[in-house]
């Protein structure tokens, strides 16, 4: 009876696993299939004659005139810029809320909560006009500023738990040994918060990497497109070229999944740490 139940549970587990990963596997599998197999009337889970032709087309600019690398560079620049600036801002603010009691502290925390809930889809109209006025439309810099604002609130929220977890006595000890606040920060706090910082960074990275509506609205010049925009552009124009579309999707998706799996446990801890403290 007990053994039977265990088997049933594990079978259910495998089923959930299969449902969760199947669409992504189907994407990767389609990307490697030759066209005859993609449009076959009897689809097979794996490519019988795997081919790299779709990847070749995507990487060498066969699908959207501009080579894939240009879009990759734009996306990577934006994501890295977002990570650097938002992590720095988040680290400073998280230190403030985790280490100090000050007036407006609660206000600040509530503001962070509210801001995370603002529908950014609604802000695209005013921000479009603002950036237009500043002549920053159609530039990666304009997008970068916007992405930072979107990434920072969550980054602070997540990071403050990590900062709070560093024992205060360590900092006090460093202060007694004569280290100034800046030195204490860099030699004591920073190394200990580093794992949390990595997790937060990856989250910021994903925010920028996946973002669609702002890049779609602000960017005009095809050279400046990011990967999601390139993908949408191509999908909209040649909706039935599933091989190259899936190859491009694979190239966009796999880095994110890799990063995500890397930090999932920490990220979840950060997300729910407060909610379960009872």
């Amino acid at each position: 009876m007990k053994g039977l139940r265990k088997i049933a549970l594990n079978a259910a587990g495998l089923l959930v696993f299969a449902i969760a990963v199947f669409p992504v596997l189907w994407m990767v599998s389609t990307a490697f299939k030759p066209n005859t197999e993609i449009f076959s009337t009897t689809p097979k889970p794996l490519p019988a004659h795997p081919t790299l032709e779709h990847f070749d087309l995507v990487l060498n600019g066969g699908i959207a005139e501009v080579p894939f690398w240009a879009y990759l560079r734009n996306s990577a620049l934006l994501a890295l810029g977002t990570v650097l600036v938002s992590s720095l801002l988040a680290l400073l603010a998280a230190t403030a809320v985790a280490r100090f009691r000050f007036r407006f502290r609660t206000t600040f925390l509530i503001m962070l909560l509210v801001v995370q809930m603002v529908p950014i889809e609604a802000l695209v109209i005013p921000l479009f006009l603002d950036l237009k006025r500043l002549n920053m439309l159609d530039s990666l810099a304009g997008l970068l500023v916007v992405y930072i604002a979107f990434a920072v609130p969550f980054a602070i929220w997540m990071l403050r738990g990590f900062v709070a977890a560093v024992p205060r006595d360590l900092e006090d000890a460093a202060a007694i040994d004569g280290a100034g606040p800046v030195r204490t920060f860099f030699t004591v706090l920073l190394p200990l918060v580093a794992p949390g910082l990595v997790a937060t960074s990856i989250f910021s990275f994903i925010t920028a990497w996946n973002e669609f509506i702002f890049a779609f609205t602000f960017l005009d010049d095809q050279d400046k497109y990011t990967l999601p925009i390139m993908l949408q552009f191509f999908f909209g124009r040649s909706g039935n070229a599933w091989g190259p579309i899936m190859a491009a999707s694979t190239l966009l998706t796999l880095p994110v999944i890799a990063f995500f799996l890397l930090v999932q446990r920490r990220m979840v801890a950060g997300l729910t740490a407060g909610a379960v403290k009872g």
Partner: protein
Amino acid sequence: MIDTAPAVRKAPGRKAPSGRARRPRRRRTGRRHGPYLLIAPTVVVIAVLMFWPVVQLGIMSFQKVGNRQLRGEPAENVGTANFEAILGDPFFWQTLRQTVLFAIVAVSATLVLGTLTGLLLNRLGRRMSRFVAGGVMVAWATPPVTAAIIFSWLFGTTGGLVNWFLDLLPDALVGGGWSDFNWFASPLPTYTVLTVCVVWQSCPFVAVSVLAGLKSLPGELYEAARVDGAGPWRAFWKITFPLLKPIFMVLVVMSVIWDFKVFTQLFIMAGMANRDAFNLSLYAYSEAFGSLNPKLGMGSAIALVLTAILLVVTAVYVRVMVRQGETE
């Protein structure tokens, strides 16, 4: 908010709840200005890029902002004309209805399936649990653009896996002629695909949060319940649910907010030409940017309605979080 030093000086009597912050330190000025300097950059960024745009959105919803304004002419005040126009338009109510219905269906499905997955993960052995959780994360990590495109492909007409599968099933069960069925030709099938796609992506977050909550519960409670003869159904509603209620509250509110404003997936699946399938955020966007005659004021008015609805939901969220001591 940058020059906050006077505010601190004016409140000498305020006692920090934790004695730790009051420990004698040598860096007096650092302590006084420190936290404000540390949050200042964030406050500036959020004020300029999030609060100010919301204000602008409010102002613009009472204005006419079109091509002429885009060329630099000042905006024309039109009073409440934008709101009168949208509230009197049956199409607005159609998009609102679609937005709300989608949110109800998607949130319910996400929470039920996500919770079941969380409960399952909690019952599995350690290795198996990790393995399944890892797989579930893949769905979470997939970028919305890719997810929408993958599901468009799965539900596609030529070579689409779902139509192929439905055609294999006996006609008595699902009807025939699936192979040419276009899922994106009318709103209901489009929203069906959208729901599957969004639920697939948002279940993992619920599952993992529920799992984290379950791990924090004492096992003795369940032991006692089992001794008293309670089955799993009763144990869930009498023990798990009440204890994890705060988590469920947060998950419901967050899911409502996410599903209410879903944009990218619907944009990819339905596009801007397929007006019948619009939800509020797509409608706002298409008014503002969708044609050669952009109506940014009108788009702002619709976006403001969306924002107002979500702010009410957010207020519930903030209340729950404050009650749970999250802002301590």
